[in-house]
């Protein structure tokens, strides 16, 4: 072995081995666990028993046998899509503005987006418990309006609305940063050229700025959509009993009912969904780059 190769292995080896042992191996174990049989007292039944290997695709059949699981996956998909949409809606004007202020203000404005993110994730979710809580000013105001229209009082906390608000709040910076990075690179001369060619403000935005920013939109969407798909803590804290998503289902299998094979199956289905969304985002981003 040459000295160069030895150095290479000494540098790359330790992180490589660590990640294989504590990331790749556990992932493979989970794939295997999804084909196993739940143990009598939870966990997994022995792999080899009664003179035969105890492997079965049963948990996958079980997943599709009851529509409730598909429904929870669809609901998680919708929540993730809605959260992504709302994040784009909020992040875009902000990111656009930051690129148009004098350079010395830009870093501060970006810093102000990232800073809340520095506080603990649970604290950020908990903050919404206070704001949306029945004693909060927001609930009072909403219910006064609802009362004026003769509607029943509504609870904001422990509702799907609270779940989406919490999801948007926790993931918003993930949308602002890639959008800003993209928008910052646009050449302002393009907008001038469009104006000279007679494009109105809307056309300049839609045909120039928005089309050029699509790679940023797709990158931000992937960064929001993917973590939301698997999030269990937000629905757990802000949602009601009916608002469970994939993450809550997985948590329940591993820590509640202790049906590990089914929990593993659910995790693998989630992984597949994540991979499909990431692949889609990458494809769209590449295509929009090719067109730009």
């Amino acid at each position, binding site marked *: 072995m040459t000295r160069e190769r030895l150095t290479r292995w000494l540098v790359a080896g330790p992180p490589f081995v660590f990640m294989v042992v504590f990331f790749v191996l556990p992932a493979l174990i989970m794939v295997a666990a999804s084909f196993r049989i739940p143990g009598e007292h939870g966990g997994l039944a022995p792999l080899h028993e009664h003179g035969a290997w105890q492997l079965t695709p049963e948990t996958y059949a079980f997943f599709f046998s009851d529509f409730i699981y598909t429904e929870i996956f669809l609901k998680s998909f919708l929540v993730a899509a809605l959260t992504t949409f709302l994040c784009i809606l909020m992040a875009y004007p902000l990111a656009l503005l930051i690129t148009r202020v004098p350079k010395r203000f830009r870093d501060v404005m970006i810093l102000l987006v990232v800073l809340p993110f520095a506080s*603990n994730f649970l604290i950020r979710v908990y903050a919404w418990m206070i704001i949306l809580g029945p004693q909060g000013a927001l609930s009072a105001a909403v219910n006064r309006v609802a009362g004026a229209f003769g509607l029943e009082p509504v609870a904001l906390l422990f509702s799907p609305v609270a779940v989406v608000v919490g999801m948007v709040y926790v993931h918003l910076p993930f949308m602002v940063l890639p959008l800003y990075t993209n928008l910052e690179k646009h050449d302002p001369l393009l907008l001038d050229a469009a104006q000279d060619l007679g494009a109105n403000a809307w056309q300049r935005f839609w045909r120039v700025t928005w089309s050029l920013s699509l790679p940023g939109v797709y990158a931000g969407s992937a960064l929001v959509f993917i973590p939301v798909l698997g999030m269990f*803590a937000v629905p757990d804290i802000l949602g009601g009993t009916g608002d469970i998503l994939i993450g809550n289902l997985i948590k329940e299998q591993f820590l509640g009912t202790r049906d590990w094979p089914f929990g593993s199956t659910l995790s693998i289905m989630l992984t597949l969904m994540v991979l499909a969304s990431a692949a889609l985002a990458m494809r769209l981003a590449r295509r929009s780059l090719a067109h730009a």
Partner: protein
Amino acid sequence: MREARTGLWAAALLVYLFLYLPLAVVVVYSFNDSRLNAEWVGFTWRWYRVLLADEGMLHAAVNSILIALGASLVATVLGTMAGLAIHRYHLRVLPILVITPVAMPEILLGVSLLLFFIQVLHLTLGLVSVLIAHITFCVGFVAIVVRARLAGMDESIFEAARDLGATPWQVFRRVTLPLILPAVIAGALMSFTLSIDDFVITFFTAGVGVSTLPLQIYSMIKIAVTPEVNAVSTLLMLLTLAMILLAARFDRTVLRGRG
């Protein structure tokens, strides 16, 4: 054009309000002399005194700090190696291995490690399992920051050192390390913050015996919300804020979130 600009400012201010109002509410109510997070009654330090007398919370804080120190130390070494290797040798698999755990929903890493620790290693969940889990997701962050720093550097410096007969270790110790040190420190501080803040992965790998600050906060939120949560949240906010700003002083990649 001017109207469009005013509209943008209005939208941006609303977003900033959305970002800061909830946190401000938490901080303000931590000084409120009432058991309810409902209306302002009067100023008090009471919840901070309750917090300092809460042994469970203090124990959890000690655990959190120990885990964060250990995880950031190991993750910084492994992450720096990974960043160097990826940059120098143009590796294909290693970047995927270190980045994927960061890019996946956290719950997946949490449950797969839970399975692995119990089923394969027969490990009793506790400090060690949490420590390993935290290292797994911190390595990627350090690698990203270190690699970004290396990418902006003139290769000829390293070539010059090699041409002058320096061994790989001498090149690293005398040339590379001093140059990437700000990124390494920033990565270490980032790892410390990520570790002390982590809830999801800790939740699955801690078992019943060990508690950390986020786990303690979670059980308080789920069982009984008292303004003590606001007090611990405020202190934790100050701590992580200080860490992030400190990290940013060493390397700006930390703030911009880009490689």
